[in-house]
């Protein structure tokens, strides 16, 4: 059943609606929510929303509720805009929202009300248009004890337990976890594109997790064991110069200390401005996709192993 989570009128003959699809079978009231599209330029979750439904149609062992929210920011998604157009606001900085606040704040409030109480919420992000990420789950240190065991069922390659930041308190995931609704943030792929293999990997993880929640009873795919690490094992590579970044290795590869990640060149003068090298032996789990860099732009992240 398709339902409206929230709605409001737009100035000229258009209704602003956020929709969900509820798939309910059996007698159990267990509920998993698949949420994506908070940022309008992240599309990896679109494939997961579609393909998960295809997979569930083939199974007859679902006992519970699967709620699919494919686009929390429909105006942004329609206009290839990461933020909420008109307000120029990052929607993932206004949670838990405010029923008496501006439109975006009151919509955020409605979303929280709809999601809270679920047995699990999976919030799927797709990095941004600049960086490509391997399938990973990011967990705030403060919420790690409860979430790591759940995240291990999800068939991701990596679980990054990052330090607490006050800014992150305004995210959907933090707000829901704060309300005792377990919420996992998945990051995978790159903005404006779909990586089908990552989608399938995550769907296998969702099926496995649903079995752990006793929402599925029959066989589910085997899942991989993720690496779990804290901030101190993650190295950031930032551009020393503005220029054109040309990668010289592949994403999701093991790299040795001082091996070449890429180079920054100047197409005007023909110079090589810098070679970007790995500071350690580890997994290159983030790699720049958008070639132009400012001084400071993130080029990659390496998990030291």
């Amino acid at each position, binding site marked *: 059943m398709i339902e409206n989570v929230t709605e409001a*009128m737009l100035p000229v003959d258009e209704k602003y609606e956020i929709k969900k699809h509820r798939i309910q079978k059996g007698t159990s009231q267990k509920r998993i929510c698949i949420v994506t599209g908070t940022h309008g330029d992240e599309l990896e979750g679109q494939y997961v929303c579609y393909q998960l439904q295809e997979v569930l149609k083939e199974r007859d062992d679902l006992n519970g509720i699967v709620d699919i929210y494919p686009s929390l920011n429909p105006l942004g998604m329609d206009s290839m805009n990461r933020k909420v157009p008109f307000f120029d606001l990052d929607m993932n900085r206004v949670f838990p929202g405010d029923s008496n606040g501006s439109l975006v704040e009151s919509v955020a409030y409605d979303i929280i009300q709809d999601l809270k109480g679920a047995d699990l919420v999976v919030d799927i992000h797709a990095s941004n248009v600049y960086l490509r990420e391997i399938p990973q789950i990011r967990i705030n240190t403060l919420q790690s004890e409860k979430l790591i065991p759940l995240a291990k069922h999800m068939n991701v390659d990596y679980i990054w337990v990052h330090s607490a930041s006050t800014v992150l308190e305004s995210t959907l995931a933090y707000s829901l976890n704060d309300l005792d609704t377990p919420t996992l943030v998945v990051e995978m792929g790159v903005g404006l594109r779909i990586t089908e293999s990552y989608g399938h990997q995550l769907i296998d993880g969702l099926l496995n997790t649903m079995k752990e929640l006793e929402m599925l009873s029959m066989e589910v795919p085997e899942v991989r064991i993720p690496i779990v690490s804290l901030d101190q094992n993650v190295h950031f590579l930032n551009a020393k110069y503005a220029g054109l970044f040309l990668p010289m290795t592949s994403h999701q590869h093991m790299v040795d200390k001082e091996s070449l990640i890429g180079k920054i060149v100047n197409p005007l003068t023909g110079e090589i401005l810098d070679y970007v090298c790995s500071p350690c032996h580890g997994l290159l789990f983030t790699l720049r996709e958008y070639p132009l860099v400012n001084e400071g732009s993130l080029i990659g992240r390496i998990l030291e192993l």
Partner: protein
Amino acid sequence: MEKKVIYELKSLYRDSLRIMGYQFGEGKPTICIVGSMRGNEVQQLYLCARLIQKFTEYEEKGYIDPQYSILVIPSINHYGMNINHRFWPQDDTDINRMFPGYNEGETTQRIAEGVFHAIKDFAYGIQLTSFYIPGEFASHIRIMKTGLEDIETAKLFGLPYIVVRNPRPYDTTTLNYNWQIWEAKAYSLYTKETDVIDEKSVNEGMNSILRFMYHQGILTKSMPGGYMTEIIYEEQMISLKCQKAGILKRFVDVEEHVKKGTLLAQILDSYDASVIEEIVAPMSGIIFFLHVKPLVYGRTAVIKMKVE
């Protein structure tokens, strides 16, 4: 006056981003004024330009106490301003959500760190800023309640209002918040406009800064006038929201006193101009914020009122 580069960022194809500081006096770092941090804060840029003009004149006439120094940074994100874009052009991040910054981080973190390094030790910090919802404000000083705030001193601006705000999580990365953490007395000055220049409001804002500086002994030339400032806690203001969407027709202006029952605005149907909603003052008070764009969404705070 010494004009200096506070921070420089080289670009591949554009001219370098140079964040300029105008320093007056050579004494201890006393007051820093930061203008436009977003690319649409034109009023804030102009207000700083007028201040620089005034301080140049004051310096020539000996009106600046030599034991103090003043720093004015008129613009930070002119890469955005020059292409009519509010946030950082390449990644759309907001520099005012990057403080105190990080010199080995991403571009806007580096800009924030470069600026903050130059201004964190000033005793007073004034940021000229704007609200994320496009609208007009009654001029006021806004202070974040960090436990380190100094509301009494803020009265010396002589503006009609001081608004005290409880910081939300995302406020902790603003310049104002971090200035306070570094023990500066920090004030955000909101004037009426952002994208366009309102000369009267610029004059009021400029005079309020000159008045504050005179009372602190930084300037020796007085600035008469000013208001008996009223302190408003943000939660004391009421938001009047429309439920319908359409064309907004306003009947009042900011800082106008209205009586209970006054018709403040109408929402008109965008196809036939019929009135589909009326917004009426639920109590007597002062109009503090007005939505100004002609088109309005449903569930939007069109007016904020300070109730009498």
